[in-house]
C-alpha cells in the first residue's frame, strides 16, 4: 500500500492588520496603510459650508509636518450613529486620517475572504474583504474609500482657497 501524505493547507500571503472599533463594531485595516496612530489633539474644525463637501464626512483637519490631513469620521463613513472617537489613524500615501473610537492590536491574517456577492450596497467599496479571527468575522476596510480622489481634489482646492483668502 502506498502511503499518502496530506498536503499542507494552502496559505495565502500573510498581512498585518490593525484592529479598531467604531460604535461597537470591530474593523481591520492593513497595517501598511497607516502611518501613525495618535490622539485627537490638534484637530481644527473644518467647515466651508458647501453641501458637496459634506459628502466626504470631513469635519476636521490636522496639520502635521506642514501637511494638512482631512479627518474622516468613521462612524459617519459607515452610516453609524454618532460615536465617541478618541483615536486618529493617519493614512499612508494620502492626506486623509480616520477618527475611530479605539484601536485594539495588530494581528496577522493569512486569508482575506471576498465579500459575498449577496452584499450589493456601499459596503462593496468600504471593504476589501472579510477576515476570520478566532471565529469572529472582521471586515477589512478599503483605505481608499474614506476620501475618494475626486473628494480629495475638492477638499484641497477648498483649503487652498481659504488659505488664499486669509492671506489676502
Amino acid at each position, binding site marked *: 500500500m502506498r502511503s499518502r501524505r496530506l498536503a499542507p493547507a494552502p496559505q495565502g500571503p500573510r498581512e498585518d492588520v490593525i484592529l479598531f472599533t467604531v460604535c461597537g*463594531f470591530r*474593523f481591520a485595516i492593513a497595517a501598511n496603510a497607516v502611518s501613525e496612530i495618535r490622539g485627537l489633539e490638534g484637530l481644527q474644525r473644518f467647515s466651508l459650508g458647501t453641501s458637496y463637501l459634506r459628502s466626504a464626512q470631513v469635519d476636521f483637519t490636522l496639520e502635521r509636518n506642514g501637511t494638512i490631513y482631512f479627518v474622516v469620521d468613521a462612524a459617519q463613513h*459607515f*452610516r*453609524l450613529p454618532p460615536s465617541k472617537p478618541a483615536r486618529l489613524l493617519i493614512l499612508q500615501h494620502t492626506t486623509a486620517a480616520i477618527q475611530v473610537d479605539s484601536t485594539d492590536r495588530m494581528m496577522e491574517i493569512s486569508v482575506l*475572504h471576498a465579500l*459575498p*456577492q*449577496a*452584499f*450589493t*450596497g*456601499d*459596503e462593496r467599496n*468600504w471593504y476589501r474583504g*472579510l477576515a*476570520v479571527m478566532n*471565529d*469572529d*468575522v*472582521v*471586515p477589512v476596510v478599503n483605505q481608499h474609500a474614506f476620501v475618494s480622489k475626486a473628494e480629495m481634489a475638492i477638499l484641497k482646492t477648498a483649503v487652498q482657497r481659504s488659505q488664499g483668502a486669509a492671506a489676502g
Partner: protein
Amino acid sequence: MSTIGEKSFVIFPLGTRRFAFPADDVTELAKPDHLQVFPHRTAMLAGVLVRRGRIIPVLDVAQVLVGPKAPPRKFYLIVNRQCGLRQERTAIPVSGECELTTAELHVSSGTTSRYVTGFLSLSNEVIEVVALEKLVGEEASA
C-alpha cells in the same frame, strides 16, 4: 393556472404561514448559529455566519414574506443562490423545522407577487413557492 408535474420542495415555516423552495436549491437545514453583523447597506441582509470555514450571508426574507410581525427565527435553511455568474450559499432564517415533500407545482397566474412562482396544494393548505432571486431583486429595486 397550469401544473408542471411533481417536483420536490422544502417547506419552511415563518410563524403561522409556510412557504417552499425547490428542493434542488436547498443544501441543508442548520441549527441556530452565531450571527455576526457589521455595517452594510444591503436590504434584507442580517449578517453572516461562519460554517465550516466559509462565510455565509444571512438573508432575512421574513419581513417581505410575512411582514413586521415576523416571529423569532430558530433555524437556518442554507440555499444555493445565483449571484451574477456565481452560485453562492445563503442562509435563510426560518421559525421552525422544515419538511421535504413531493408535490405538483401549480404555476402562478400572475395575480400574486412576482417572486411567487407557483403554489403547492397540500390537503387544506396552499403553500407559495418562492423564487429567492426574484424576491431579492424586487426588494432591491423597491
